[in-house]
């Protein structure tokens, strides 16, 4: 009798699950539309002329072109890395166009003064209104489509406080000294294959400078959108927080649904000086490909912050739900004494997505502290890996690190992996790492069921609770979006 009951329960759960899976499968990637706007795209292929052309299009000074050419020369000597736990195919770098400008004037057309209304509509649709009166008053946005910054809001208001917030292209024109002082000092072009590629061909991204003693009055944010076909996005972001300043920075991204794989190889560099604090949050929602693993964005990103100042603080928070392949390790170099670094991450993979993400904490100064909290959730046939390094240098007395990375498996065809590395060269360091991998506890599910909560809701509850530790670190505006994303990405993957 008991057996029968069990069977029935199983079948019911299966039916429910199947129904839900179907419902969710039918749910389309919300931001998968394309915008029909005239875009000037340069010829496919990558060579020195292309690098020169990009530099010329952006009207860059000679030192910038030199930087690009050096990076390109180095990139040519490198091969695509294969150590990640992802099935990244050999990318044909010659079949990608490296510059796409949706703001370019039509041939023979008159000079555009206003932004194309199509573009305005696109960003409206994405929930990023570019008109300041409509925008949330607390957030300034730098909206970037393909290779060009469409608009940066609240620029003037921020300038009153001495804050520079603009696209990196503008910054190179208007604040060349600042850019030259910091660009490439945190992530040198020789850092890795993709960093070299980005340094050679990067287009717009954001530039932020917070002067001494200024607390940025609003959240700064960049929104990245890939629109054009057969292009890659290679944005570059540079954030400099001078002594005693504070800024919270948000980054969001989406792309249209396409069968082809598009490449996104960005660099983010952050410099944090004495007693300054930077909070960097990402909700990454690039197109993840369809349920059969077709299409999707290859997200191959180098992000690093250097805590140069005494008592400085840097906090990375990321919610990774999109991209077919993610290869991303937001890192911190704790150079200043008493500096503090944090890394909070939720990575969700479903269908055939693959994520290899984590962080590096490099302790060089004295009394430095770092915390790593990583939550991986894998479903479908996806692979989700945490890869992290904690290094304590010989002079980093009293360094302290705590890492915890947990993985949750939903479904029997997915994988969850942990690859932590710890290199300790100092006898006063305390480094701790712990990780667990499991599926959702049957006891917890049973407890919820007992109290009348249906299984799928219970799963939602448990997953949300599991990710809460990280979601709580997100700024308000993003927390809501992230939670919604999490439920869309996940619900229906279990019964």
């Amino acid at each position, binding site marked *: 009798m008991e057996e029968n009951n069990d069977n029935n329960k199983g079948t019911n759960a299966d039916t429910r699950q199947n129904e839900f899976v179907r419902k969710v499968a039918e749910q389309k990637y919300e931001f998968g539309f394309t915008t029909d706007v005239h875009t000037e795209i340069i010829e496919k292929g990558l060579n020195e002329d292309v690098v020169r052309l990009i530099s010329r299009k952006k009207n860059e000074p000679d030192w910038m072109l030199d930087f690009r050419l050096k990076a390109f020369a180095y990139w040519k000597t490198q091969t695509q890395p294969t150590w990640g736990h992802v099935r990244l195919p050999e990318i044909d770098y010659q079949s990608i166009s490296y510059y796409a400008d949706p703001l370019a004037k039509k041939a023979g057309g008159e000079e555009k003064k206003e932004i194309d209304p199509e573009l305005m509509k696109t960003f409206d649709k994405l929930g990023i209104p570019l008109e300041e009166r409509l925008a949330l008053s607390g957030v300034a946005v730098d909206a970037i489509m393909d290779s060009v910054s469409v608009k940066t809001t609240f620029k003037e208001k921020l300038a009153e406080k001495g804050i520079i917030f603009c696209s990196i292209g503008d910054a190179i024109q208007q604040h060349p000294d600042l850019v030259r002082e910091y660009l490439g000092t945190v992530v040198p072009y020789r850092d890795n294959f993709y960093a070299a590629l980005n340094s050679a061909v990067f287009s717009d991204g954001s530039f932020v400078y917070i002067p001494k003693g200024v607390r940025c009055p609003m959240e700064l944010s960049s929104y990245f959108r890939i629109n054009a076909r057969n292009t890659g996005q290679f944005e570059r972001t540079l954030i400099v927080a001078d002594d005693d300043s504070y800024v919270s920075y948000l980054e969001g991204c989406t792309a249209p649904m396409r069968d082809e794989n598009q490449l996104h190889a960005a660099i983010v560099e952050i410099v944090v000086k004495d007693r300054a604090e930077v909070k960097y949050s990402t909700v990454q929602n690039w197109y993840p490909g369809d349920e059969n693993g077709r299409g999707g964005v290859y997200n191959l990103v180098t992000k690093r912050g250097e805590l140069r100042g005494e008592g400085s603080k840097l906090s990375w928070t990321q919610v990774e739900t999109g991209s077919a392949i993610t290869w991303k390790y937001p890192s911190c170099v704790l150079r200043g004494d008493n500096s503090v670094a944090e890394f909070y991450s939720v990575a969700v993979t479903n269908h055939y997505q693959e994520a290899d993400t984590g962080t590096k904490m490099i302790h060089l100064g004295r009394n430095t502290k770092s915390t790593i909290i990583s939550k991986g959730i894998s479903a479908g046939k996806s692979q989700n890996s945490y890869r992290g390094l904690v290094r304590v240098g010989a002079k980093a007395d009293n360094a302290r690190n705590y890492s915890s990375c947990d993985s949750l498996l939903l479904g029997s065809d997915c994988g969850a992996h942990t690859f932590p590395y710890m290199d300790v060269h100092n006898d006063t360091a*305390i480094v701790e790492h712990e990780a667990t991998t499991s599926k959702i506890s049957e006891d917890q599910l049973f407890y919820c069921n007992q109290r009348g909560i249906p299984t799928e809701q219970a799963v939602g509850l448990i997953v949300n609770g599991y990710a809460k530790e990280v979601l709580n670190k997100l700024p308000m505006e993003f927390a809501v979006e992230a939670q919604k994303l999490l439920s869309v990405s996940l619900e229906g993957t279990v019964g």
Partner: protein
Amino acid sequence: MQSEQQYIDLYNNSRRMLFGHSADAMNAVRDRAFDDFSRLGFPTRKVERYKYTDMEALFAPDYGLNINRLDIPVNPYDAFRCDVPNLSTSLYFIVNDAFYSKTQPKSHLPEGVVVGSLNDFAGKHPELIAGYYARIARTDEDAVTALNTMLAQDGLVVYVPKNVVVDRAVQVINILRSDVDLMVNRRVLIIVEDGAEIKLLFCDHAADDRRFLATQVIEAYVGNNAGLDLYCLEETHAKNVRVSNLYIEQQAGSRVNHNIITLHNGVTRNRTDLVMAGEGAECRLNGCVIADKRQHVDNNTLIDHRVPHCTSNQLYKYVLDGEAKAAFAGRVLVRPGAQKTISEMRNQNICATRDAHIYTQPMLEIYADDVKCAHGSTVGQLNDAALFYMRQRGISLKEAKLLLEFAFINEVIDSIQLAPLRDRLHLLVEKRFRGELSKCEGCKLCR
């Protein structure tokens, strides 16, 4: 640097001698191993599993090899008298890589059990050897295993037939003895058939103050419901290089208890690969390392859960002093379908000085959802509060530190099933921490 070339030349020049002194079953795989070795070359530090030990540098010096099987005069009892008191074992010796057959223990092993020379056994039972020799120790993916397979001429075989339980522990003393710098390629084959049980204790000693390079490949096959306790204790000296690859295959319901203890050494690299091939198997891998001066210890483990319902447990503890460098890299692989796997891995380390370096890398790779896997890793110091507590009560700082370090390591030692060995190790570890030579008066070195 092309360290492998000298070994390739050596093989080409002395192939006939190698074949002439070994049984056919061992020769059968030699050429294949040579091809694999020539193809692979020594792994660089870019190879993930060899990240922490530079193999090429270790194999670069010009060592002598005893390919012609010259008799090295030795009285093992003279070279080694560190018997474990109260541990009644069946004692065997391996001198360099040759089984020492001139002394045999007084006690008899149960009928059918063989502990003896691998080469002799391979001559007598080629069919048995062919089924096991160089099967899990794959030469095509590890250059050291390939090198060992192509140069090994003798070693040890332990064969326990079906349902035979060997009560008395078997102790095997590996003695390195030479008047010149010597390379030794030792090979061990352990076959524990269904329902059988055996406890093995390997002790590594170096009797001469020469540079030694010992490669060792151990293959252990543990049958259904069989049990194997394998303890490896290394007490050599600073000029000794040990590269040991241990491969274990466990069938359904089997139990493996493996302890690896490194007290004195020069450079040590231990690789342990364990495959869960049958459901319900259990294993416990423990290790402890006490290192100072310029010692280098690298433990690398892989537990491959291929089938459901297996349990694995790992605990490695290190205490590093002086300029010691040590690494622990553990990987647990749960293959698709290996549901209900329970796996735990723990690695805890104490760095006592600034110049001591520790690298730790506990990895989980999981492709099944209904599993419980955890790993934890810590690097830290002795508890200040505990030290203060003891000093308040009149215990000197030095003594208090010793007590804490001793307690830290004891968690590993206490898991050893053989009580007399456990007591002996407690003593050895304490002596080791006190900086006394952890050798007894009887040894050649101590005299």
